[in-house]
């Protein structure tokens, strides 16, 4: 009986310990991943950081370290295709969560330059996508800047109208007319920009291409050709930032510059932290 009790006790102990180890806190999981990164186990570090993200833990430093792990593996003999793209995705995610992170911003520029350099070395074209005019204009300043200017225009318009109608003095009425004209222009222009920026933010999610080239497809999954004239380029290069509008099965409707097309969902990573 005693002999039987020992393995039974071990089993019970293991069973009790197992849930404890399974219920690792995000901070502990981050520490384990960072430790794997420190000792050069990039695959393990990437697995742990990705699991952390899949479990819903969103933190700019975790995203940054994930980028570090991908970048280290990309420059090692065990590099996987798309590691640079995934590093770009992780850094872009860091900046979404902490826009003032200057180190992440510099790193993102470096990685994108490195991707461009490698493409040039392989004899591939440098592809830059021009955003649509509306996106380009609304993206000139942060959304809140447009909102503040629109509010200012509204105040000017209110004051101008009130003075124009209820003041008896001619000079005041003249000033009010000028103010309400400026206010109306500000309100219309910046209000429209604020609304457009909000709409662009809400109708799509940013994503990054994590394969060497993401082929542009039609909604049936058939590859689009430049010769048909519908698109400017046939593929999006690694690290390219796209806006995802819709998911249909294994396909994603994306906007890349002024191009609207579909890509395979496995070829892009939609950024966490984006709304």
């Amino acid at each position, binding site marked *: 009986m005693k002999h039987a009790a020992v393995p039974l006790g071990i089993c019970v102990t293991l069973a009790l310990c197992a849930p404890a180890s*399974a219920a690792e806190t995000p901070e502990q*999981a981050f520490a*384990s*991943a*960072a430790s794997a*990164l*420190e*000792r*050069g*186990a*990039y*695959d*393990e570090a990437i*697995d*742990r950081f990705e*699991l952390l993200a*899949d*479990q819903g833990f969103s*933190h700019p*430093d*975790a995203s*940054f*370290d994930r*980028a*570090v*792990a991908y*970048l*280290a593996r990309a*420059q*090692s003999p*065990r590099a996987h295709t798309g590691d640079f793209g995934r590093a770009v995705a992780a850094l872009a995610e860091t900046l979404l*969560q*902490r*826009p003032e*992170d200057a*180190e992440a911003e510099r*790193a993102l520029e470096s990685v994108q330059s*490195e991707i461009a350099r490698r493409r040039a070395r392989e004899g591939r074209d440098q592809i830059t996508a021009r955003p649509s005019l509306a996106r380009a204009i609304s993206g000139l300043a942060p*959304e*809140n800047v447009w*909102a*503040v200017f*629109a*509010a200012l225009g*509204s*105040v000017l318009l*209110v004051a101008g*109208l*009130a003075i124009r*109608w209820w003041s008896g003095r001619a000079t005041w009425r003249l000033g009010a007319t000028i103010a309400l004209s400026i206010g*109306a222009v500000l*309100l219309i222009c910046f*209000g429209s920009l*604020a609304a457009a*920026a*909000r709409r662009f*933010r809400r109708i799509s999610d940013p994503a990054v291409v994590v394969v060497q080239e993401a082929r542009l497809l039609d909604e049936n999954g058939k590859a689009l050709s430049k010769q048909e004239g519908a698109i400017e380029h046939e593929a999006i290069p690694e690290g390219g930032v796209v806006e995802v509008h819709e998911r249909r*099965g*294994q396909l994603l409707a994306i906007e890349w510059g002024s191009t609207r097309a579909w890509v395979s969902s496995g070829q892009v990573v939609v950024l966490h*932290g984006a709304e």
Partner: protein
Amino acid sequence: MRAAALLAGVAALTVAAPAPAQAQRVDTQLSARKVEVGERIVLQATISTAAGAAPPANPTLLVPSGMSASGPNISTQQQVTISGGQIRQSYGVTATWGLTAARPGTYRVGPASFQVGAARVQGLPATVEVVPAGSGPRPQRPSFPPDPFDVFRGQGFPSFPGFGFDEPDQSQELTPPFPDELKLDRARDPLAFLRMRATPLRVVVGEQVTLAVDAYGSRGPFREVSSTEPSHPDFLSFAIISDAHGERQYRVPIEGTNFFAVKVREFALFPLHSGKLRIGPMQMGFDGRGYTSAGQTAGLRRSSEPLEITVVEPPIAGRPPGYKIGDVGRYKLTASVEPRQVTAGDAVSVVVKLEGTGNLPHQLNVPEQRGVEWLEPSIVDDVEPQSGVIGGWRKFSYVARLNQAGSLALGEIALPFWDPQRGAYDVARAALGTIDVRDNPALKNKRDKERASAPEIALPARKTLGAPGERPRYFGDSPWFWLVLGMGPLAVIGLRGATRLGSLFLTRWQARQQAHQTRANLALREAQAALERNEAAVAASAVERAVHLAIEAKADLRARGVLRDELAATLEARGISSDSAKEAVVLLDACDALRFTSSETIPARALVDRASQLVSGLHRSVRSSA
């Protein structure tokens, strides 16, 4: 009862029959010696061995050029005989081939042979004459010589199951046993149909789905021709049964009809991603007597229903690090590392064997660390269906170069997987142990070079979590922002509009009041004129009109519609003074008396004067209130 009697008869005759030769001999029979081009003949080879001897296996048939063969369909039999007081057991194997000749001629078919232990036993070849199509003998029911294991074939008795040549006999009551998986309650088609089934219908990504297609025909045995495979682009596929040749046809009673049923396809499918994944229908031609062919080679065309499999990802909760979507099954890892002592810069061989069932991965995560360089592994495997389940082993042979001296713990290789039977994650592990790495001075230069060729972009990792980034707040997300933005100017414009509208109403109202007053004054003048003419009734009528108009101007009330008894109170309620109200009632009563009875309760002149005073008084009060 009839079945029991038949079985008893079979047993009695078997006992009485002479014992079959126990020498290992192959008997070969043909269904016909003379056939037309394209007509199918059946060759049956039977071997029997004594119980305890090596069982016959691996039947082969030499097929001449110009003839094609399908099969073999293999069935086994056991026989017990009692001879001279001794019980003797024998074991038989029958292999059946279907043969078709493409051109006329005389063909030598065979010999058929079996592997028995280390030896191969073969029978005699047979000769078949093939004549041009249309010139041959009238097709007859194939006849077979007495079979030592089925002596009652053609004698009016039911044949033993598994011999493959049973003719349809709808009146037969004794149905040989058939697999439960072929059982059906309802036939989709009274003649022939295909049924596609998959188990299970809800799986996780990477979990095996067994897809089977069964063919049912009610007009006797059939042959599969011109099939179109079921499409399954979202699955990794392993064929377990790739065609109906060699598969046994069973009699399956469905709604009182005996169908011949056979499993024509079986696949192990592994879903590649989540979602509702579709498996397309399979099409097949039924070829045989009673099955009207849609074309020369198409057979009787039938199609199965498509299927939809619900595929989900295993839960995120409890997922171990390193789990790859699709690693589903039951795995075991073992590893060997050799040698255990090396000089820095040398390599060790790490052989990891992955065994188990399910979707065995093609890649393992090796325990990387600084100073250990893992090269790409060479892989050999043996993965195949085993009793309908995909499984086997895969061996990964790595070379790991060790560049740092010292006692190096290689760590372990871990493979997390989802166990669908337990519905939980598990991790297969293989410890790699420790290697003694001796120092190698020659390696120092190499290390220095490696340090010099550091990666182009080196980012320092963040060891701790800093303050989490604040989620940006957008003014535009607040409905109040847009409300205030638009409502400010709109409120001013609305206020301005309301003011303008109010003054417009006031002006119009005043004009209206003035119109009533003017008409009242005119009526008073008419009354004066009537007095001058000594027309009291006309004057009373004019006075009444003047009073009513004055009341309407003051109280916006048409007094003619109000009962006279209630008029005073109504006027008071409309803001007219009590005195004026009473006066108005008195004047109106006096006017009525003067007009209708010519009695002057108030003298006519006094009536006009008092009316003038009342109208003036009401007009004043209107102006002051305006």
